[in-house]
């Protein structure tokens, strides 16, 4: 079992897996899943939603690493948290892009300001953009790591709290596919969706691992140079 999961801890293995899953997912999207009442443009669902959920997942992962940093003082956790949030921001941007395309097709506008769900996601996205501004305007060191970590924690609490806030006032047109009654879709659609979700998560994992490798290498080189000089 451990051997089976080993590729998941390895950037190259993850990258290969992600490629395969994306290929399968795309194929299923266009050849297996039935065409919805919405027509062909509904196909974007299989990318838009997994990408959005991946963004949340990476933000969550970043917060978890932040907690590890603050709590266990584990060296390296700060970097992991940073990289996770970086990935989250990339996927967040993709969510906005895919969502906007869909919105243009479905609602005829790139963006609806009246729609609190969308605006809220934009705010959260801006919140994480500020993470980078904050981080880069503090000198590298333990203080920066701590502040970044606290900020990441705040973010992951802000997300559910904000959604709770706007759900208090119920009237939004952004659809809800997963309700208390379970997913509102056909089995084949659900299967495709799950494959696409797995594809996005492995993609995010691969990118996360790759960036981490690069950053760690950077640090190593700097340390070595320090020893030599």
């Amino acid at each position, binding site marked *: 079992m451990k051997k089976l999961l080993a590729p998941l801890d390895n950037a190259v293995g993850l990258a290969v897996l992600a490629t395969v899953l994306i290929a399968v997912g795309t194929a299923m999207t266009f050849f297996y899943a039935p065409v919805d009442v919405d027509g062909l443009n509904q196909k974007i669902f299989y990318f838009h939603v997994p990408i959005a959920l991946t963004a949340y997942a990476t933000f969550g992962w970043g917060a978890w690493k932040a907690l590890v940093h603050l709590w266990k003082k584990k060296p390296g956790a700060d970097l992991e948290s940073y990289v996770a949030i970086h990935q989250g921001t990339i996927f967040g941007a993709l969510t906005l892009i895919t969502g906007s395309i869909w919105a243009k097709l479905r609602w005829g506008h790139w963006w609806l300001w009246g729609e609190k769900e969308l605006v809220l996601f934009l705010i959260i996205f801006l919140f994480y953009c500020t993470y980078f501004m904050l981080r880069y305007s503090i000198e590298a060191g333990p203080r920066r790591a701590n502040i970044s970590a606290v900020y990441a924690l705040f973010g992951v609490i802000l997300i559910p709290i904000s959604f709770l806030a706007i759900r208090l006032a119920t009237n939004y047109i952004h659809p809800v596919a997963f309700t208390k009654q379970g997913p509102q879709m056909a089995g084949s659609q659900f299967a495709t969706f799950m494959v696409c979700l797995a594809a996005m998560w492995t993609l995010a994992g691969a990118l996360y691992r790759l960036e981490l490798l690069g950053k760690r290498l950077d640090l190593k080189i700097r340390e070595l140079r*320090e020893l030599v000089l």
Partner: protein
Amino acid sequence: MADTASLPLVRAQGLSKRYGDKRVLSKLSFSLQSGGFLLVTGPNGAGKSTLLRLCAGLEGPTAGELEVGVERDELGYLGHEPLLYRELTALENLELFAKLYRVPERRDRIHELLERFGMWGERDNRISTYSRGMIQRVALCRVLLHEPRLLILDEPYTALDAAGCELLDAVLAERRGNHTFLVSTHDPARIEHLASDRLAFAEGAAT
């Protein structure tokens, strides 16, 4: 704490500090016994203030170990900044810190110190209206307020007039042996006779 006096109160082992690419302290090792007096000297930019800030816990080292065996309330640090609120009067500043440090018989203690440093008459004026030397005097009062076990003083003679310097001489001499000192200065001749240890930085930025 019977044998405190024989244990090192401050111990540095391979202590290094970098700012970005700039190496300020490298592989510094020393130890200071409880009751000792370490005189830190060296040219401008040598790293004296940096070392003192590290010992006070205001910054962390880049590498190496630094152990300082006192609690926060047993430490007194005087840096280049006076660490006084400029909008408050001398009395209000000292009251504030005396409360935070739980100084017993606060009022008497503050009176005594201000009197000694010649600032009692000015106690109700705001720090922002003081001259540079007057600020230094009040800063010294603040540091001595809770009679800390470890006194870290960065160029404490700065801005003092002749009388002020003599006063500080006396204050240091009185406490020598009971307290532990870490003092930096550009005029070592003045307090050499008090020092038990010496740390002389050789090169600075401006050499």
